[in-house]
């Protein structure tokens, strides 16, 4: 294979040859330029291939005919080859990206570009410190010089600031190198074998600090931000990716020289950089500068990961560091390229990206990749990194990194949402398809493929777990078909999937079947309502199927990672589904932020959890492990965020309300159950391995108050979907409380309620979707009297609200009965009282829902409203039918549910025919149904027989205190219906939690704004930062 020295030689030669060739023809020099970059890539590619094929070990290449330490030597192992290939590839692609620019500007640009790549290559290869200094200088000087490719005031002044900083850095580096030589007698990294303790520490310290400055660590990075903001997009790419990578690699090489306490501090600096730059990014409105903040943050993350993975086995270390590296490399390159195409500074102006579909998709891919979502490399890296940090007890680092990551997600997704949903006029300047777009698409595809590669090859995920992604891709391919065809195909696919899971995967536990019914059968019936879509609905079914298949994967996940992967895929799909809503910007952002925060809690929680034994599904595997308390708390919190428990529920009403009408039912009826499923899994692990501290007692209280507050909040809504959303919150509170009881009856009632809630909430949401479809409003006070126009919807809502309220004889009473019996039996008396209160309050919102929409006075503008489309009616009546059957024959359900719960607890309910006996009471659903029918029929017949003549009257023919009402608006009691209750609640009715989260958000933004003021724009201030950094870090270390 080619000696890696040629990487340097070819580039140097090109530097001399290019001016000559350029004299002949610009095309020739351009071809040579690309040729050199291509040659670099090919050489490193061959090496990489070689290293993968055979274990070549680590090769050393010497120069000038001597061996080290007499000469400079290059070292090439698989690691070097990998990094070299990556940066040369990006070099090549960026070179192509910049071709047009180079064609128009002086030749120097091309030469400098080649020098940058060469400097980076040399820095990675060399083992000689002084040689490294030379390469670093080549790298810096040519990088700075290439900034002048774009000659504006801003770019020049930022280049000068860069110059000052890198000048100081090079002074430190040089001094450090010389002192290392002075103390150890060698410049070759392989031959320096003394410990740099006591006064000799200063030598390595100076080298390290120089590298940290060049790596743009917080707070010595103001100049870098300016450069990112002002320079050409292509140049920013090479600074962010090539330059930084080479320097990070250099840091990796000198790590063995550094004492461990300093390494720890540098690691913290890395993590802190990640946190701070993302915090400061929150306030940023300039796209390029935002990318700068993000780049710097990623470098901090990379540095931290290099340092804190030091003790791990090499493969894992490559997974982590390499994962972060590749993720940053691809995503940041892509984003910088797009920024070059968009030519707009403000974040909100990026909406022009919508003129180019494929670019928009790539933008999404890069954002998701950067935020650490599967299947991209960053996801795996973060998972493994957190796990390894936990193994090393580095809680502080985890906190810094996850918090930083959260901030990054916030601004990234705010940007994403703004971009894809912002107001965009067709006449605005649009992005034409071009070579650059194709290049960007290529890069995005590369990143995606890489992620899939890791997923398939490293982790060996089977087909079922990749199915969510595959289905998204597949439906994207057939997206041109009409919605109905895609919908029916989806339904078919789902049916087969459910059948496949049921027959072939063989659930280990009946609880899986129960949740399978909730997730898959529920989704299937809900899917019918989407068939009403008449437009093509691009992307909708792909996302929907992705979400549904992720639910399926959650059921059968056998390891924490499989579960977490499916969880994140579900989050992606549901986020994008919510985002499809017309005004869903804020809602989807909140959903994303809370989901991510929950996911991070879960990630840490799983990290604390002990390894599972065997390869059975989590529901089995978890029973045999003892989860530590911290793990239980974190996991439970993570799941509770997804199910919208009190305190973290604020995303819930927004997301439900703003999602498309037929999506809301999926979110409420099924997505929330995913949180319940997770919560249940954690609880299962606790049954036989209870922690010392009875944490579930407090979770029970949390659930109970969620139920109460949710019910109150629902009662005070004007928006039908928000009302239902809060109602879901309330119902989830019951379920959480019931699971937390950790008793047989408690779990039976939780299961019962989960299934019941899925049915009646689906029916309600679909009914409201139908009403919305006809009336185009969600405000209940804008409706009224629709019973005559939409009788079928009315009946379905009526049955559903009876089921929700728990009034006998419908199935809701079963859940109430089970619930109260179990609470009293468990000794949770006051909790039971709060639940009584909550369910009494729930009558308020239920009545409000049905009254203000269907009863009372009809509005003039609705006089021609028709019944909801048949596609909405069918699924509602399927659910209603199921509710009626289960109400009449409750033991069809109670028996299997009782069996499920008795796997974990001794059963203390007795089922005898239609009778169910608990230790406190009894219930015969069938008899109740018969008696109720009887007492209903008697007065009905009586009335029909004796009523005499019935006069039907028109609207407004009412006794209105002797005056005739003027219009429905004055006569329909709907707006602020429970004003007196609100008044009675006084201070308790204030939205404190909402205020709290708003306050937190504002606080974070203010903090970000406060800290970023240190970047005053003055080059001298930046110098001062560097000097202070040098001194302070040193004393911290000592």
């Amino acid at each position, binding site marked *: 294979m080619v000696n890696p020295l040629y990487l340097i030689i070819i580039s140097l030669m090109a530097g001399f040859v290019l001016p000559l060739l350029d004299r002949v023809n610009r095309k020739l020099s351009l071809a040579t330029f690309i040729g050199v970059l291509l040659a670099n890539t090919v050489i490193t590619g061959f090496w990489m291939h070689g290293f993968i094929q055979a274990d070549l070990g680590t090769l050393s290449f010497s120069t000038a005919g001597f061996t080290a330490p007499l000469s400079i030597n290059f070292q090439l192992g698989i690691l070097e080859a990998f990094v070299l290939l990556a940066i040369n590839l990006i070099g090549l692609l960026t070179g192509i990206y910049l071709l047009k620019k180079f064609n128009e500007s002086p030749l120097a640009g091309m030469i400098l570009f080649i020098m940058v790549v060469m400097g980076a290559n040399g820095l990675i290869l060399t083992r000689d410190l002084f040689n490294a200094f030379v390469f670093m*200088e080549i790298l810096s*000087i040519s990088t700075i*010089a290439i900034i002048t490719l774009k000659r504006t005031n801003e770019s020049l002044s930022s280049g000068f600031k860069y*110059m000052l900083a890198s000048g100081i850095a090079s002074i430190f580096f*040089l001094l450090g190198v010389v002192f290392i030589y002075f103390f150890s007698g060698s410049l070759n990294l392989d031959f320096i074998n003394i410990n740099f303790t006591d006064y000799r520490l200063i030598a390595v310290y100076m080298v390290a600090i120089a590298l940290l400055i060049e790596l743009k660590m917080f707070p010595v990075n103001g100049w870098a931000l*300016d450069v990112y903001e002002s320079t050409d997009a292509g140049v920013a790419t090479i600074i962010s990716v090539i330059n930084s990578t080479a320097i990070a690699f250099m840091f990796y090489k000198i790590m063995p020289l550094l004492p461990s306490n300093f390494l720890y501090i540098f690691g913290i600096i890395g993590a802190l950089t990640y946190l701070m730059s993302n915090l400061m990014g929150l306030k940023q409105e300039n796209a390029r500068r935002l990318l700068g903040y993000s780049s710097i943050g990623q470098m901090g993350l990379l540095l931290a990961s290099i340092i804190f993975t030091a003790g791990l086995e090499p493969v894992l270390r490559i997974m982590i560091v390499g994962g972060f590296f590749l993720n940053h490399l691809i995503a940041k390159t892509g984003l910088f390229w797009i920024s070059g195409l968009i030519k707009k500074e403000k974040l909100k102006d990026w909406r022009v990206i919508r003129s180019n579909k494929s670019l928009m998709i790539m933008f999404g891919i890069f954002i998701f990749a950067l935020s650490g979502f599967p299947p991209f490399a960053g996801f795996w890296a973060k998972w493994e990194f957190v796990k390894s940090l936990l193994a090393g007890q580095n809680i502080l680092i985890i906190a810094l990194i996850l918090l930083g990551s959260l901030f990054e997600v916030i601004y990234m997704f705010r940007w994403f949402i703004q971009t894809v949903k912002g107001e965009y006029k067709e006449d605005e300047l649009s992005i034409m398809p071009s070579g650059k777009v194709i290049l960007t698409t290529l890069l995005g595809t590369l990143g995606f493929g890489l992620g899939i590669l890791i997923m398939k090859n490293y982790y060996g995920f089977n087909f079922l777990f990749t199915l969510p992604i595959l289905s998204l891709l597949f439906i994207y391919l057939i997206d041109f078909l009409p919605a109905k065809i895609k919908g029916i195909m989806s339904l078919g696919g789902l049916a087969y999937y459910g059948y496949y899971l049921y027959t072939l995967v063989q659930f280990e536990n009946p609880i899986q079947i129960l949740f399978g019914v909730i997730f898959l059968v529920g989704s299937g019936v809900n899917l019918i309502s989407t068939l009403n879509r008449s437009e093509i609905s691009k992307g909708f079914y792909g996302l929907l199927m992705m979400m549904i298949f992720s639910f399926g994967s959650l059921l059968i996940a056998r390891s924490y990672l499989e579960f977490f992967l499916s969880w994140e895929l579900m989050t992606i799909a549901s986020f994008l589904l919510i985002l499809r809503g017309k005004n869903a910007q804020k809602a989807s952002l909140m959903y994303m932020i809370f989901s991510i925060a929950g996911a991070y809690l879960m990630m840490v929680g799983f990290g604390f959890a002990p390894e599972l034994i065997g390869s059975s599904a989590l529901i089995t595997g978890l029973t045999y492990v003892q989860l530590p308390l911290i793990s239980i708390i974190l996991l439970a919190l993570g799941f509770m965020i997804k199910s919208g428990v009190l305190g973290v529920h604020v995303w819930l009403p927004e997301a439900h309300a703003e999602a498309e009408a037929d999506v809301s039912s999926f979110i409420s009826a099924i997505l929330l159950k995913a949180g319940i499923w997770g919560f249940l899994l954690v609880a299962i692990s606790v049954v036989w391995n209870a922690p010392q501290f009875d944490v579930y007692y407090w979770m029970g209280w949390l659930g109970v108050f969620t139920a109460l507050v949710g019910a109150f909040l629902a009662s005070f809504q004007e928006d039908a979907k928000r009302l239902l959303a809060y109602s879901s919150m309330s119902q989830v509170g019951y379920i959480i409380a019931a699971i937390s009881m950790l008793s047989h009856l408690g779990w039976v009632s939780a299961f019962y309620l989960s299934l019941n809630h899925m049915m009646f909430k689906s029916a309600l949401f679909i009914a409201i979707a139908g009403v919305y479809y006809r009336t185009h409003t969600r405000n209940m006070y804008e409706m009224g009297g629709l019973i005559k126009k939409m009788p079928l919807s009315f009946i379905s809502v009526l049955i559903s609200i009876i089921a929700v309220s728990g009034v006998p004889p419908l199935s809701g009473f079963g859940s109430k009965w089970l619930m109260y019996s179990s609470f009293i039996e468990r000794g949770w008396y006051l909790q039971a009282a709060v639940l009584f209160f909550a369910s009494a309050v729930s009558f308020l919102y239920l009545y409000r829902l049905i009254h203000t929409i269907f009863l009372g006075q009809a509005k003039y503008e609705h006089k021609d409203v028709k019944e909801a489309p048949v596609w909405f009616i069918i699924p509602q009546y399927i659910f209603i039918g199921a509710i009626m059957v289960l109400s009449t024959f409750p033991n069809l359900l109670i028996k299997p549910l009782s069996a499920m719960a008795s796997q974990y607890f001794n059963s203390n309910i007795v089922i005898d025919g239609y009778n169910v006996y608990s230790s406190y009471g009894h219930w015969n659903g069938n008899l109740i149904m018969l008696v109720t029918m009887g007492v209903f029929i008697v007065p009905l017949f009586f009335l029909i027989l004796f009523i005499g003549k019935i006069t039907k009257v028109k609207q407004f023919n009412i006794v209105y205190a002797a005056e005739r009402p003027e219009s429905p608006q004055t006569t329909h009691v709907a707006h602020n219906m429970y004003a007196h209750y609100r008044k009675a609640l006084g201070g308790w009715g204030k939205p404190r939690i909402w205020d709290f989260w708003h306050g937190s958000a504002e606080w974070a933004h203010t903090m970000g704004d406060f800290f970023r003021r240190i970047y005053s724009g*003055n*080059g001298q201030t930046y110098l001062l930062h560097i*000097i202070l950094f040098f001194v302070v870090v040193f004393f911290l270390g000592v």
Partner: protein
Amino acid sequence: MIETLILGFILLLIGLYAMLSQKNIIKIILGFSIADTGVHIIIVSLGYLKGRRAPILDSAVDIANSVKEVVDPIPSALVLTAIVIGLATTALMLVFAAELHKRKASFSIDDYKELKW
């Protein structure tokens, strides 16, 4: 040679001080040059061993025992490269200064902080 070592450090500090205190870009560049020179002097003086000969292996030196007789040649070699690089850096800085002056007719670094935060 401890005296030159100290001299080198003094120059380095003077240079750094100049870079931090002077508002004029040209003076900042000068400060950088001074600091750089200080570094060069430090390098050379680290390699110099009192009472030894120049590291040229000719007849005046006992080749077998040369290690003990001559000064360390490597710092001298390094400093040459360092000087060249320093030169390049200074030159590039001056180019930037000139370009900036062309646009704003000012050498004050305070005039170049459009980009911040």
